[in-house]
């Protein structure tokens, strides 16, 4: 090996779908450069690494760790702590690690309800003995254990310190490559790194800035679900009554979904300066409803507005589709006075 050792790269998945790993491979021929520049020291998705390998490394051995996936159970959390200890730079990679993403939608319900749906009451489940996973199971050979399944899904920065966030579900290949280039430049040529805690590989403004659809003053009579209308190809989707989270979502993806007629889902998280993406979306979308004016009687006003508000199906799941774990309240109450 040469005088200078290669920087070490790790990638790990916690509670995730695996799409983030694919997105790294999706940077096309640049993946060869990644392989050339980095020593891959832990990447269970693409090569056979064991936790004992990771444990055997000295602290701070890994230069960059891309951590994707939310913290769903005690194993995820343990791995987050372990990788934090072994890594110089820890990146919350993708929406799950950054803000909970789809796994955190289960923060809209409880652990018991989740288990009930997954293992017991589900048309595609055949479980006559009502078996559900137990943390400890005794068998003839001894005790088997499973991680503790948390009631609340957490984002990575709610359990360990995170150096950078790379949003997206999954992050877009050009953005990933740009970020890797910055990191490589810093590690090999001493170029400056972005400030700690920065959101990298994304813009700062709202997605609408990148969206090429024609935008006029927004005034919405009612909302439609995607199957109810065929959207006009050039007009702003929100103006057509389709819920599009672009106005409350960080730019960076190039407005891919709106460009093909699907409202933005919000996977890049809130733009600069916004804490709670869902609340901001709610605020914006409500104020442009074209219903009710000062001349109406109060009861009529409330009824008319309620009618339009009710055309938004599942507001919590829509506005917080990706950001539930990172929202201000983080989860729902289990029930009256219950924790």
């Amino acid at each position, binding site marked *: 090996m040469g005088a200078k050792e290669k920087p070490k790269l790790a990638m790990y998945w916690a509670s995730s779908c695996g799409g983030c790993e694919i997105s790294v491979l999706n940077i096309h021929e640049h993946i060869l450069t990644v392989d050339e520049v980095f020593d891959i020291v832990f990447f269970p998705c693409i090569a056979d690494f064991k936790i004992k390998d990771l444990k055997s490394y000295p602290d701070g051995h890994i230069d960059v760790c891309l951590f994707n996936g939310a913290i769903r159970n005690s194993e995820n959390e343990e791995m987050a702590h372990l990788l934090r200890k072994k890594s110089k730079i820890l990146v919350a990679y993708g929406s799950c690690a950054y803000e909970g993403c789809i796994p955190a939608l289960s923060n809209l319900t409880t652990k018991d309800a989740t288990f009930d749906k997954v293992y017991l009451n589900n048309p595609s489940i055949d479980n006559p003995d009502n078996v559900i996973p137990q943390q400890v199971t005794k068998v003839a050979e001894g005790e088997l254990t499973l991680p503790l399944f948390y009631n609340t899904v957490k984002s990575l920065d709610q359990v360990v310190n995170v150096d950078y966030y790379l949003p997206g579900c999954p992050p877009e290949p050009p953005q990933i490559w740009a970020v890797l280039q910055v990191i490589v430049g810093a590690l090999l040529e001493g170029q400056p790194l972005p400030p700690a805690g920065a959101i990298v590989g994304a813009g700062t403004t709202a997605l609408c800035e990148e969206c090429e659809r024609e935008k006029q003053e927004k005034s919405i009579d009612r909302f439609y679900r995607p199957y109810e209308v065929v959207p006009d190809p050039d007009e702003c989707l929100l103006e057509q009554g389709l819920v599009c989270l672009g106005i409350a979502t960080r730019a960076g993806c190039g407005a891919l979904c709106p460009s093909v007629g699907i409202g933005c889902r919000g996977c890049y998280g809130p733009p600069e300066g916004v804490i709670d993406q869902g609340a901001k979306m709610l605020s914006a979308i409500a104020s442009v409803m074209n*219903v*009710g004016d000062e001349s109406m009687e109060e009861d009529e006003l409330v009824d008319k507005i309620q009618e339009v508000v009710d055309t938004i199906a599942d507001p919590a799941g829509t506005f917080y589709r990706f950001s539930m774990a990172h929202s*201000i309240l983080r989860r729902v109450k289990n029930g009256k006075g219950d924790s």
Partner: protein
Amino acid sequence: MSEQFEPVIVGFLCNWCSYRAADLAGTARIKYAPSLRPIRVMCSGRVDPQFVLKAFINGADGVLIAGCHPGECHYLNGNIKTLRRFLLLKNTLSQWGIEDERVQLQWASASEGIILAERVNKMTEEIRALGPLRWYDKVLGGNGAVPIPVKEK
């Protein structure tokens, strides 16, 4: 707990009507529940839903938004926007398991000190009946920083 639970209600009062109503309630020496923590905003339309959520995570048991009557907004229709946001917020918060009584909207003009005071009294009693919210410790379990233990069956 033998002591009676005293709810904390964060009030966002519009500068032009409701804050003056609260002022009037004070100068007229109207007695009402000491549960309201008033915050003056220029318009009830200035109340970002984030403010409501922040009040809850920081320990409020309820949030009262108060503004001018429809048609009397200093900024023409700020309060109509408030009403739209309020109704959508209520739909969303009901998915959170937050009871309707915890977020309320009251129109109160500058001369309606008594109406504001009565609403605070009523809301205080309603929330007292519901009990404390204590989102941070009770719902999140130490800010979600510690794993919430599996519930005993």
